[in-house]
């Protein structure tokens, strides 16, 4: 290939040169170039190395179907592999590199694979290395896992950057009456027709210019300009550099708009790409057609490309890609290309596989009845051997010297998007292509997407598609439009020859690979795809699918439709993961919830931890304290004096209405109907299937007014559940539920001096003595300074304890009163770690124990299930399997040697029988300041009574090993509850 830039012609701007770098050297192109056209004009021919054989590859197309010029673009964190050079707009300073080659694409040591090509057929690696004798006989695929890593290094595509993506991406939503995809003759006319009829139209074009096939034809420029101007005037929303990559339910199209990928110095406020979700009343697909190649020997050499591609480089980019050109065609479309090249001064030989072809354009030497057999030359095209039909096969008939070989094996309409919606493509034998199958959705094909080849007919087809999209009846031009019918040729080879004739060049799949698949029994088209990798990855069957199907049909002795086609799936072209993620990254990945006391806690030395979406206090370390030292000190202080813990994140639901008590009675396993005003009760709620859903205390504030608390993590779930019950099952209950979690700032004040600490903060005359506010009592309260709230005598720590709730915005005022009072008494602030230690000592359960698998009996709370009333889950908790005597039961765990510690998550096994799933597991572990050694909670079959005096091992082989433990009652500290009732 001896490409050169012409002095004039094309759509590039020769007054605006653009410098870019390719493999470390600087080259020059022009504004309006793609990376591919600029490299071609710079004389670069080998731009890539193939997937498996590392064969040199050059530009094969001028569009999304590119399988040769696949390169890496950008540097450092912006390094992006597998960019099609034909789709990358040139910009100043663009940095591109060849990939899948070492040291570079022009001299690649990996090309040695090509010498062993006959071994590397489809399935080679699996057949050879899986179960490699003698090492793997009878041993599964362990060694394969090792080989695979090496094989993956040798084969493949470019490598992605490991650095975090420095760019941002946006998500956008839009609605329109009619979405038109593609802006060629059909698309522009469709958009204009709909807009002129008053419809709200969006027009999407993946290229950076509107016009589609118009762009490749200077003679049509006036038509294009007029149409584009009309479209712009008509108020159509136009998105260029935007790919409609998928169609989905309900008229939804997914688009990716490349906002800054073509800019040298993008505005830092712009997203790199925008991911659009468009909801269209109807969709017109004017996505065009892709020209396909033919399988023949060395059809992947740099200098072999589709006829349309060469025409685009000539007419759009002002490049003459070769001087001595052979065009091999099976249809009429290449005749115009031949004429253009002859007019541009090239020597053109047109080999038409049909013997009854039309007359040649001026200056073109026509060779009827000939098809390409083999390319001569290794790193470029030096000539082509041509074959003529001979019986059912081919025989060599001629040889032409040339530096460029253009191929038109036929056209494949881009029916991918309609296939996304389940419209199965239908084979049209006359046109040798798949057309979109019928669909009941408002999706309309226009132009060459519908197999219409002639430009005027394409325009009419666009108008008709728009009319149909508007609900009118409109006659569309019939598919076709060539004067002489196509005579499809899929493969040209001599009988018995062993050559590399590529069907899918992106994956190095050859005609022989397809036949091998058939020979080995992979006759289904889906198996063929997976066995040979034909049409996988970024190509998605654009180039090779039809040839592969035709070869399989030939091997099976049937027609193409009998083989079928794979269903196309989104995306049409690759979509960056960043675009899918949009702004939902890092801190925006999920909501962040902070309690009203968050800032106060931080000012007082809190280290925070995540609990679901919430930031909660973890521990309050003093100078040089470790987390372990901090929580042990905090828990000890709570047991000795007093501690304050932020519990604002607990779910709080106001349950109000005349039937609120009855409602709670049905939801909780224990009775609430006779709970007096001013009292709280601990309750457990089950799911329908009898498994524990959540627990918490509910406070009766008035006859028809309850405040339910839930665990932090289940607050949302419980709220949804209550709403479901009230609206779908018990609509007769007069109850309203309101989430009030965020309304309150809440603290737990726990310890023997808790009452003393709180009392000094209260207004005169408020009595919280044991008589006035007994255990589980609830009362309104007013703090000094006018802060009003609620106080409840509730204990999670097992100490004398209160929960104090005040309106969220007065939380800090409450803390400024409470904390000095507690501090004077020798108290502390404590976080989740100490809270955990305190509750484990008491055997109180949390989410670790109530994990969605356990029954109320398993958790040791069976006595809380009423036998006098029915409740949700009452029936199914009695299922035989849930009432077995050997169900896991909540237990406490001590290390046999009290100096030892052990880990949460360890399995509990009878000592000497460490095997399988064991007999139980450990859910929570802490050092117990009260007991002076490590303790745990967990479950074991039959509970602690069944394991009294038996030797048990906490098996933890992958971490610290096994520890001998004793199974004890879960109530490890103050089992009678003397302290909290005091």
């Amino acid at each position, binding site marked *: 290939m001896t490409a050169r830039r012409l002095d004039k012609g094309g759509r590039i701007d020769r007054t605006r040169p653009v410098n870019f770098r390719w493999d470390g050297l600087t080259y020059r192109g022009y504004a309006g170039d793609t990376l591919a056209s600029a490299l071609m004009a710079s004389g670069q021919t080998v731009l890539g190395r193939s997937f498996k054989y590392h064969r040199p590859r050059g530009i094969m197309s001028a569009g999304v179907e590119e399988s040769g010029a696949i390169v890496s673009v950008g540097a450092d964190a912006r390094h992006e592999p597998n960019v099609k050079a034909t789709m990358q707009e040139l910009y100043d300073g663009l940095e591109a590199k060849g990939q899948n080659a070492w040291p570079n694409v022009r001299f690649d040591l990996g090309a040695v694979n090509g010498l062993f090509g006959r071994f590397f057929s489809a399935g080679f690696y699996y057949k050879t290395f899986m179960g490699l004798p003698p090492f793997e006989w009878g041993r599964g695929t362990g060694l394969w896992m090792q080989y695979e890593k090496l094989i993956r290094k040798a084969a493949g595509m470019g490598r992605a950057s490991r650095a975090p993506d420095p760019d941002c991406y946006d998500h956008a939503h839009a609605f329109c009456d009619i979405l038109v995809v593609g802006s060629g003759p059909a698309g522009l006319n469709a958009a204009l027709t709909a807009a002129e009829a008053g419809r709200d139209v969006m027009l999407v074009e993946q290229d950076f210019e509107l016009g589609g096939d118009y762009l490749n034809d200077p003679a049509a420029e006036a038509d294009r300009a007029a149409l584009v101007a009309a479209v712009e005037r008509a108020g159509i929303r136009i998105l260029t550099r935007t790919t409609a990559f998928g169609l*989905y*339910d*309900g008229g*939804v199209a997914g688009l990716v708009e490349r906002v800054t990928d073509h800019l040298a110095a993008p505005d830092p406020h712009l997203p790199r790409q925008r991911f659009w*979700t468009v*909801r269209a009343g109807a969709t017109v697909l004017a996505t065009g057609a892709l020209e396909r190649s033919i399988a023949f020997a060395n059809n992947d050499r740099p200098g072999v490309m589709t006829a349309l591609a060469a025409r685009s480089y000539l007419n759009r980019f002002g490049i003459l890609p070769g001087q001595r050109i052979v065009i091999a065609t099976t249809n009429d479309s290449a005749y115009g290309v031949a004429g253009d090249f002859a007019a541009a001064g090239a020597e053109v030989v047109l080999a038409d596989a049909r013997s009854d072809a039309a007359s040649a354009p001026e200056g073109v030497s026509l060779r009827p009845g000939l098809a390409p057999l083999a390319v001569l030359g290794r790193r470029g095209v030096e000539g082509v051997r041509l074959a003529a039909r001979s019986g059912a096969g081919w025989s060599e008939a001629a040889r032409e010297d040339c530096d460029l070989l253009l191929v038109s094996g036929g056209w494949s309409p881009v029916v991918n998007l309609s296939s996304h919606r389940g419209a199965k493509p239908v084979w049209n034998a006359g046109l040798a292509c798949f057309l979109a199958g019928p669909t009941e959705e408002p999706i309309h094909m226009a132009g060459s997407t519908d197999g219409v080849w002639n430009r005027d007919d394409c325009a009419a087809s666009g108008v008709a598609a728009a009319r149909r999209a508007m609900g009118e009846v409109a006659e569309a031009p019939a598919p076709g439009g060539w004067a002489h019918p196509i005579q499809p040729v899929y493969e040209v080879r001599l009988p018995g020859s062993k050559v590399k004739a590529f069907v899918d060049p992106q994956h190095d799949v050859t005609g022989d690979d397809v036949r091998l698949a058939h020979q080995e029994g992979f006759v289904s088209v889906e198996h063929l795809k997976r066995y040979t990798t034909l049409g996988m990855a970024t190509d998605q069957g654009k180039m090779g699918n039809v040839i592969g199907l035709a070869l399989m049909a030939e091997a099976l002795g049937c027609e193409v439709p009998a083989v079928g086609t794979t269903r196309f799936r989104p995306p049409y072209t690759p979509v960056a993961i960043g675009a899918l993620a949009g702004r939902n990254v890092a801190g925006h990945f999920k909501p962040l919830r902070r309690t009203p006391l968050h800032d106060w806690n931080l000012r007082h030395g809190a280290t925070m931890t995540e609990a679901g979406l919430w930031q909660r206090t973890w521990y309050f370390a003093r100078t040089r304290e470790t987390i372990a030292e901090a929580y042990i000190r905090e828990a000890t202080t709570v047991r000795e004096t007093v501690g304050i813990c932020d519990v604002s994140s607990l779910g709080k639901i106001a349950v109000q209405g005349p039937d609120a008590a009855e409602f709670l009675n*049905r939801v909780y396993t224990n009775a609430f109907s006779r709970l007096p005003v001013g009292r709280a009760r601990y309750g457990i709620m089950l799911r*329908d*299937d009898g498994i524990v859903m959540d627990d918490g205390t509910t406070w009766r504030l008035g006859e028809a007014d309850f405040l339910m608390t839930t665990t932090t993590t289940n607050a949302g779930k419980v709220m*949804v559940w209550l*709403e*479901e019950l*009230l*609206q*779908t*099952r018990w*609509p007769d209950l007069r109850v309203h539920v309101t989430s009030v979690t965020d309304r309150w700032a809440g603290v737990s004040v726990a310890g023997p001096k808790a009452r003393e600490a709180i009392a000094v903060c209260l207004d005169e005359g408020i009595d919280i003595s044991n008589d006035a506010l007994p255990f589980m009592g609830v009362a309104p309260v007013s703090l000094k300074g006018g802060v009003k709230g609620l106080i409840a005598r509730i204990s999670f720590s097992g100490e004398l304890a209160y929960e104090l709730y005040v309106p969220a915005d007065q939380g800090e005022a409450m803390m400024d009163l409470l904390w000095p009072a507690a501090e004077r008494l020798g108290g502390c602030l404590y976080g989740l770690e100490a809270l955990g230690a305190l509750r484990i000592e008491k055997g109180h359960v949390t989410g670790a124990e109530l994990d969605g698998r356990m029954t109320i009996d398993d958790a040791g709370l069976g006595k809380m299930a009423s036998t006098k009333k*029915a*409740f*949700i889950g*009452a*029936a*199914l908790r*009695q*299922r035989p399997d849930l009432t077995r005597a050997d169900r896991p039961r909540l237990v406490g765990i001590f290390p046999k040697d009290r100096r030892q510690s052990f880990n949460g998550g360890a399995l509990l096994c009878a000592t000497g029988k460490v095997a399988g799933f064991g007999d139980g597991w450990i859910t929570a572990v802490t050092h117990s300041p009260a007991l002076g050694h490590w303790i745990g909670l967990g479950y074991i079959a039959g509970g602690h009574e069944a394991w009294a005096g038996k030797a048990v091992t906490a098996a933890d082989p992958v971490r610290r090993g096994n520890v001998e433990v004793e199974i004890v009652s879960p109530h490890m500290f103050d089992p009678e509850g003397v302290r909290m009732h005091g």
Partner: protein
Amino acid sequence: MLRIDCPFCGTRDHSEFSYGGDGSVTYPALDAPMQDWHDAVFLRENICGRQVETWHHVHGCRMWLMVERDTMTHEIFSTRPAHPGLASALEAAE
């Protein structure tokens, strides 16, 4: 990519809603036998075609809705409040 016509908020994207379950199930009384509960909780038809299902407008008005949907085409035929009192009040208002 469903759009659900919430009777209270108007047509909204399905991402505002969460799926509940089979809307045709009538749950037994709380003191009904275990077998009745077993059937209501565990036995489901796997319908190809129209089915009534519950959806919760969790990021909207928080109302539970009865949605009649084709499980194969995703076409939605009707949407009404799951609460029968609200449903009949809305009907009367129309």
